[in-house]
C-alpha cells in the first residue's frame, strides 16, 4: 500500500480527503485509481504536477514503479529559471 | 536610398564600407564590416555593449552616426589582441572567470582598456565608476573588477 498525500488545492475534487492508502504498482496506475475515486483528478494530476516518491521529486513519472509503503506526494509543476 | 562611402582605419587596417547616412556606427561595423564582436544591448548608450575606441576615445558605437568616422580610427574587441597574443585584460578575464554569458565582455574589455590606458593604477572605486557605463547582468561585477585589478598590476609590472 502506498500512502498518498493530496495537496489542499485538489480538495475541490476529493471532497476534502487529504490522505489515502492505495495499492498501485506504478504512478500511472495510481493516478487511474485516484481518478476512479475522484473523477476529474486524473487529468489535473497528469497535466500539471510532479510526483514525489519517498521524497524524490520526479517528472514524467507515469511508469515509475512505486515501492512498498511508499509516501507519495503530488506537487505543482515547477518552472525553472 | 543612397548610401555613403566611408573610409576609416579599423583595427589597424584601412577599411571602406557603405552605410546609410543616418545609420549607426554600430550597425555599420556589424552589418557592413562584419565585426560582430561589437554587440548591441540597448542602442541608446545605456549599456556599453557596443563600446569601441573611436579616435582613441571610448565611445558607444550606437550613438555615433556612421559618416562621422570618415578618416577616423576605430578599435574594436577584434583588434584588442596583438596578433596571436592576448591583451592582459583578455587573459585576466579568462583566468579570473570574469565572464559568464559573454555578451557584455567585449564592451567591458574596451572600457577597461580605456581606463588602464589613462590610469594604470586605478583604485577599486575608480574601476567601478569607469565601468559604470557597461552593464553586466551575470557576474555581479565582482570578478570583472578583480580581473581589471589583476590586469592593471600585470601591465604595471611588464
Amino acid at each position, binding site marked *: 500500500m502506498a500512502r498518498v498525500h493530496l495537496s489542499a488545492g485538489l480538495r475541490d475534487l476529493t471532497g476534502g480527503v487529504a490522505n489515502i492508502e492505495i495499492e498501485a504498482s506504478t504512478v500511472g496506475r495510481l493516478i487511474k485509481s485516484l481518478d476512479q475515486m475522484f473523477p476529474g483528478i486524473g487529468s489535473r494530476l497528469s497535466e500539471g504536477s510532479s510526483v514525489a516518491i519517498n521524497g524524490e521529486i520526479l517528472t514524467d513519472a507515469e511508469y515509475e514503479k512505486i515501492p512498498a509503503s511508499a509516501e507519495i506526494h503530488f506537487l505543482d509543476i515547477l518552472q525553472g529559471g | 536610398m543612397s548610401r*555613403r562611402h566611408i573610409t576609416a582605419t579599423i583595427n589597424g587596417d584601412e577599411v571602406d564600407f557603405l552605410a*546609410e*547616412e*543616418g545609420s*549607426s556606427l554600430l550597425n555599420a561595423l556589424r552589418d557592413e564590416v562584419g565585426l560582430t564582436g561589437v554587440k548591441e544591448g540597448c*542602442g*541608446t*548608450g*545605456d549599456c*556599453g555593449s557596443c*563600446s569601441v575606441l*573611436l579616435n582613441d*576615445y*571610448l*565611445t*558607444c558605437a*550606437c*550613438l*555615433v*552616426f556612421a*559618416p*562621422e568616422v*570618415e578618416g577616423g580610427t576605430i578599435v574594436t574587441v577584434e583588434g584588442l589582441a596583438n596578433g596571436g597574443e592576448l591583451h592582459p585584460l583578455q587573459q585576466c578575464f579568462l583566468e579570473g572567470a570574469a565572464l559568464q554569458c559573454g555578451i557584455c565582455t567585449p564592451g567591458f574589455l574596451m*572600457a577597461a582598456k*580605456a*581606463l588602464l590606458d589613462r590610469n594604470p593604477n586605478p583604485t577599486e572605486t575608480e574601476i567601478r*565608476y*569607469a565601468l*559604470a*557605463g*557597461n552593464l553586466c547582468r551575470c557576474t555581479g561585477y565582482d570578478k570583472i573588477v578583480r580581473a581589471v585589478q589583476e590586469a592593471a598590476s600585470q601591465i604595471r609590472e611588464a
Partner: protein
Amino acid sequence: MKYASPSSVEEATGVLAGALSAQVFAGATDVVPQIRAGRKQPEILVDLKGIKELLNVSNEATHWRVGAATPTARLTENSDFSSEFPGLSEAAGLIGSDQIQNRSSLGGNLCNGSPAADSVPAMVVNGVRAVVAGGSGSRTVPVSEIVTGPGKTSLADDEFIVEFEIDHMPAHTGDAYLRLIPRTEMDIAVVGVGVRVTLDDVGMVSAADIVLGAVAPTVVRVPEAEAALVGNQINDEILATVSAAASEACNPIDDKRGTIAYRKQVAGVLAKRAVLLAAERAAERNGDAK
C-alpha cells in the same frame, strides 16, 4: 536621413537655412535615443564637430572659452578649468558614463532642453554666456535664457551655440553641483542643485547663487535662499532657511523618476549640502583668478 559635416560656422548656418528639418548635434547622446524612439525624424543631421571653434577650450585673460561641442571629458580632464570651476566641472562630468563623456557637450546638454540637465544649474550660477551663431549673425546670451521649457529653446531654427564664455572665478568664491540619482551612475537627476558662493574677509557671504534643476520645467533660481545667505555667516539657522527656500522654489512633477514631495524635500537637503561645499571651496580659494 542625410548627414552633413560643415567645417565653418557660415557653412553650417547655410545648411540650416536650406533644410526643411535639420537636427544639429555634437555627441548625439540625446538625439540618437530620440530618433530611435520616433520622437524626431530630421531630414538632415548636421554634425557640428567639424567646426573648430566648437571644439576649442582656451583660458583667456578675463574668461574661459569653451566650444559648445567640446566633449565634457575634455573639459573635466582640463586641470586648470576643473580647479577653477570644480562645481561646473563635476556637473559636466556627471553627464553619463565615460563612453557618454567622450561625446556629450555643454552645448548639447543645454540645447536638449531637459529640465534635469546636470551642467545647466552649474553654468547658470557661474553666469555663463552662450555665443549663438545664426543666419542673421552672432549674439551673446546668458545661458539662463536659452531653455524656455522641456525640449524647447529660444534659439531660432538656423541658430546654434558656438561657444560658452565663462568669466574667471573671483577670489574667495567657490561653486558646487550636487544631484540625487537612485543609482550611483547612469541616471537622470531627480534633483540637481548648483551653488556659487563668495565670502568676504571675515567669512561672511558676500554673493550667492543657487539654482535648482529637475524640479521645474526649466532650471529655477532661489532668490530667497540667496538673500538669506548674503551678508551672513553660514550657520545651521541660515542653512535651514536655504533648505526651506529651495524646497519652496520647486515646481516639480510626479513622474517615473520621482514624486513632487520627494523632489521638494531633497532639493532642500542638496541645497544645504551644496552651499556648505561651495563655501568650503570659496574659503580655500584665496588668490586671484586662475
